[in-house]
């Protein structure tokens, strides 16, 4: 469902993403881990069509993002790390706006879906309030509503748990698992190793723009030669380039 081929992004002298190759199958909940500045957000922005790659390509559902951006974007739901929204719209108006952008024409079914999503994310009481009065967590939940509204085949998520309270975080984890069971492919970057270990079927670790390891939690443990938690695996794998290069990429 997702294929990244020789994906590269450079900012002047800095190579933020360096010849990345990755394939994610349909219905997979894929965790994308890495230390700060490793290139996670840059990769995700290129996948969402917000950032233009220096070279390489992004294929979603068999279509090239550079060649057919509109068709590809119709399949994608994007949740960025910071929920910047139109502050002068209400929650319900914002979702109607998103439905419009995705050309969801059937007014009654759109209304029902908006109502269902607002209920799911516990925002029904705030539907007619201006977004400028929402808290960070509420804005984050509204962005998730908007990403799920067009029922995308691929969900691209950057740091979804930032700003969410424990109840919100639990809710999001459950929804992601449920969506992946419905064959939605979810590509999620996160700092939270607990979240990755709990919900992701597959994990890739990126460092200095390159994928240094990939596989299930168990496979990563084996590759790192560590028997403990995912945290110790992560620390071991990202502690230095020597180990990073020695890490087998057989899983990819």
């Amino acid at each position, binding site marked *: 469902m997702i294929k990244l081929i020789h994906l590269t992004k450079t900012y002047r002298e800095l190579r933020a993403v360096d010849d990345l190759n990755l394939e994610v199958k349909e219905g997979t909940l894929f965790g994308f881990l890495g230390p700060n500045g490793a290139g996670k957000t840059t990769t995700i922005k290129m996948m*969402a069509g917000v950032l233009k790659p220096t070279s390489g390509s992004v294929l979603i559902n068999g279509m090239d993002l550079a060649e057919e951006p509109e068709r590809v974007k119709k399949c994608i739901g994007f949740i960025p790390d910071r929920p910047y929204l*139109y502050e*002068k719209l209400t929650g319900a*108006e914002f979702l109607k706006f*998103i439905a419009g952008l*995705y050309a969801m024409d059937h007014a009654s079914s759109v209304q029902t879906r908006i109502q269902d999503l607002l209920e799911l994310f516990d925002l029904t009481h705030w539907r007619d*309030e*201006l977004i400028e009065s929402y808290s960070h967590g509420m804005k984050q939940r509204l962005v998730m509503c908007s990403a799920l509204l067009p029922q995308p085949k691929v969900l691209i998520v950057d740091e979804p748990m930032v700003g969410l309270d424990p109840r919100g975080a639990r809710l999001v984890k459950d929804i992601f698992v449920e969506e992946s069971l419905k064959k939605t492919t979810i590509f999620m970057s996160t700092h939270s190793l607990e979240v990755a270990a709990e919900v992701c079927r597959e994990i890739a670790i990126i460092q200095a723009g390159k994928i240094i390891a990939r596989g299930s939690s168990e496979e990563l443990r084996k590759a790192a030669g560590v028997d403990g938690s995912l945290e110790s695996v992560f620390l071991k794998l990202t502690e230095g380039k020597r180990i990073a290069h020695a890490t087998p990429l057989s899983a990819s």
Partner: protein
Amino acid sequence: MLVVGLAFWALLFGLSFRVLKYFQSVEVIGELLAHHLLGMILMVFFSLLIFSHIIAALSNLYLSSDLELCHACPARLEEVFLSRAIYTVIDSSWMVIVFGLPVMMAYGVVFKPGFGFYVSLSHMGLGVTLIAGSLGILITMILVRIFPAQRTRDVTLLLGVCGLGALYMMFRLLRPERLVDPDAFFTIAQYMAALQGPDSPYLPTHWMTETLWAYLSRSSEKEALFQSSLLWSTVGALTVINVWVAEAIYFSGFSKAQEAKRRRAGKRLLDFLGALIKRPFSTELGAIIDKDLRAFFRDNTQWSQLLLLGALVVVYVYNFSVLPLDKSPIRIEFLQNEIAFFNVGLAGFVLSAVSVRFIFPAVSSEGPAFWIVQSSPVPLKRFLWTKFAFYLFPMLVLGEVLIVLTNHLLEVTPFMMALSTGTMFLAVFGIVALGVGMGAMYPNFNHQNIAQVATGFGGLMFMIHSAAFVAFIVVLEAGPVYVLFMADLRGAAVSGWQWVLIALCFSAVLFLMTAAVYKPMKMGLKALSRCE
């Protein structure tokens, strides 16, 4: 920007210098006019200073994001208040002072007062600024006590814009140009009464005017000393009063400002308007138009400027109704139509000024939420053309209203009416496309206030291009219009070569207008596609 600032400064100085020189040459009333003008200028600056202090104090004392850190510091409340108050005074008064200086310098150059004038100008200018600052901050603290800070900004802005609009209209309708033409008054008493402005011996501007005038007219300097003492004792008293009031109500107001953020939106009218306007468009474009409409009318800093625009239109049209055409030595029929033709250029400049405020920031108004458009299946090209379509209709209405009403007042020929309305109709397409396209070329998605976008480098570039576009149209049409109009007036035929020239000029106008629509939109799209 520095060059533009210096040019404006020089222009202001030159203008003030010429006016004062003229006053000096007028016997009996010349000095009186110069004295009166000084009082009026200081009064305008004083009012502007109070208003800008209210706005700045709201941000700096109540809404700024670093205030939480300031209040969490182990500092006394008076220290926090005073430090922010001083910052507010500096923040909101430098511009008025900078633009006031050339006028005051012109007084200095024309009247050649002694060194005492400049000393008084410095210390009394500072004193008046501090009084305006203290009053502005005091009013803000009281307003926040009554309304929540978020609402106070809206209420103040709205009142301010209404006040400015009313002041502008009132000033224009008083026809100040008559003051330099005493023949327009029946009696000298009537003239003297018209000269009496809103002045009072209790106003700080009166104290400053009298002090400066004492030096300018070389009269008693004892008067100056008395007025200075009045001013500085008021500064001291107001500072103490401000600190007392701050101790009593500042922190509770700040605390209240943090709480009052929940806002319900007015919906029904916008639902109706949105449904009406987006009807001819596709679902995607309709969604963008509907969003822009709601965002515009819910932002008080945006829609309230429509009131100023209304005042501008009224005054613009009014100016044409009081033109003294009958006093001109040129044939009235020729003059009416000549003015109507150049009015196309003038109205074009007005539309450019309106566009720099409303249309140029249209792309930047997406702010940091622009990622939503970027990641959506709507192509950027369609997004840009939607912005164009959204602003085109209101601008067409504004442009045609200006042209048709003024042409009606000028009683122009049907040919001139058709030519000017047609030219304006097509020119609006170019001005709107320049605004949207250049706004996309110079986007600022991280602005704190959308008004900042218009005053940046991109806004200046837009103004230059838009003004040049309008000027080119007027220049290209001037020749053919003259030939056709004079032929019509004299009942003579237009020669074959003249027809060729006319066709060439109008073709060039059409080419220019087409280029003004497509080129900036294309360049804007290219720049926006590269935007990361």
